[in-house]
């Protein structure tokens, strides 16, 4: 799993936890919700409604494959690559990275998840996969269960941590202890959803083959 370091590299092991940015550190200005991204989110949602309303098989497949691949790759990448890197960063670097990274995740992940699930459900209905008589119906139900687990982890822990970090970073004096704790929660839950994504990959390739 991901290892979030305590304190600066080279600091006392297990102690010397970051309690805040060092004096003189200027936190970059940022917006909790990046407004420039909102038109892209709106465009994706309008496109999704259009392909669902039109029962457009290629469109549904496109949204499901692009959304699902992005969701899987981002979860795995954040949980297993970015997470350990953040853990080894100095406090100012961690804060600067978070102020640039977390607002984008706030818009990106719900959009990617919505496009994957909405198009996936319609695709399954369109192709008859939801029908209990479909030979691999059990795999479809298994995918729903995995998505349910991911939704519980993401909506209960991951996304609240994402938003809370942004609010903490907006404060005049961000509490490094709170940021550290919330970022740990964010990275650990990303790792858990990353593992669930491996299960999704197994299920989806099983259904498709």
């Amino acid at each position, binding site marked *: 799993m991901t290892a979030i370091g*305590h304190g600066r590299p080279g600091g006392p092991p*297990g*102690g*010397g*936890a970051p*309690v*805040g940015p*060092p*004096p003189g550190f200027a936190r970059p200005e940022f917006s909790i919700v990046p407004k420039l991204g909102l038109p892209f989110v709106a465009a994706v*949602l309008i496109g*999704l*409604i259009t392909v*669902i*309303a039109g029962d457009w098989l290629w469109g549904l497949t496109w949204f499901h494959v692009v959304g699902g691949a992005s969701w899987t790759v981002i979860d795995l990448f954040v949980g297993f690559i970015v997470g350990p890197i953040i853990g080894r960063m100095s406090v100012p670097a961690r804060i600067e990275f978070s102020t640039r990274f977390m607002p984008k995740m706030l818009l990106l992940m*719900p959009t990617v998840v*919505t496009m994957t699930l*909405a198009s996936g*459900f*319609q695709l399954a*209905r369109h192709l008859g996969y*939801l*029908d*209990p008589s479909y030979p691999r*119906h059990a795999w*479809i*139900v298994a995918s*729903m*269960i995995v998505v*349910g687990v991911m*939704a*519980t982890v993401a*909506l*209960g*822990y991951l*996304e*609240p*941590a994402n*938003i*809370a970090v942004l*609010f*903490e970073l907006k*404060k005049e004096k961000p*509490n*490094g*202890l*709170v940021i*550290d*704790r*919330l970022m*740990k929660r964010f990275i650990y839950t990303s790792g858990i959803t990353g593992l669930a994504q491996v299960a999704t990959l197994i299920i989806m390739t099983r259904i498709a083959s």
Partner: protein
Amino acid sequence: MSGHGHGAPGGPPPFPEPRSFPRITEIGILSMICVIVGVIVMAAKLPGAPPLGLPIGLIVAAAVILTINIAVLARLQDFACYRFWQVFRWGGLAYLIIAGMIEYAFIYDNTRGSTLVVLTLLLALFSANVPILLAFTVARFETRVRAGER
């Protein structure tokens, strides 16, 4: 979580340990699990007529747990209510849009009658639970509590 809160000697003053709260997040997640299991049970049988007994039982359980959570929240002292409502409003709007899209998909798929009612109730509980989880997680770390607010 490890116990922190001690700064480097001579460094900036340490921040206080975040205050402990009742397990609002865990209670909320329990309610969410009831909702998600209910949706899976229903979706696994669509577009046919899914059995409604278990989903209705899960709706009742989720609603009771949600009510308990709201009661616990309402009794919190020195809680940043203004921050809670700020996040709840925007989170609620976002998840109403998402729930609306899911509802649209169900109606579009010719889901009707009691099946649609049960799915709508599950979605309503979903879109009530998530903003509470978001808003509580933000507000619990808010150190500024406006005068006169509980």
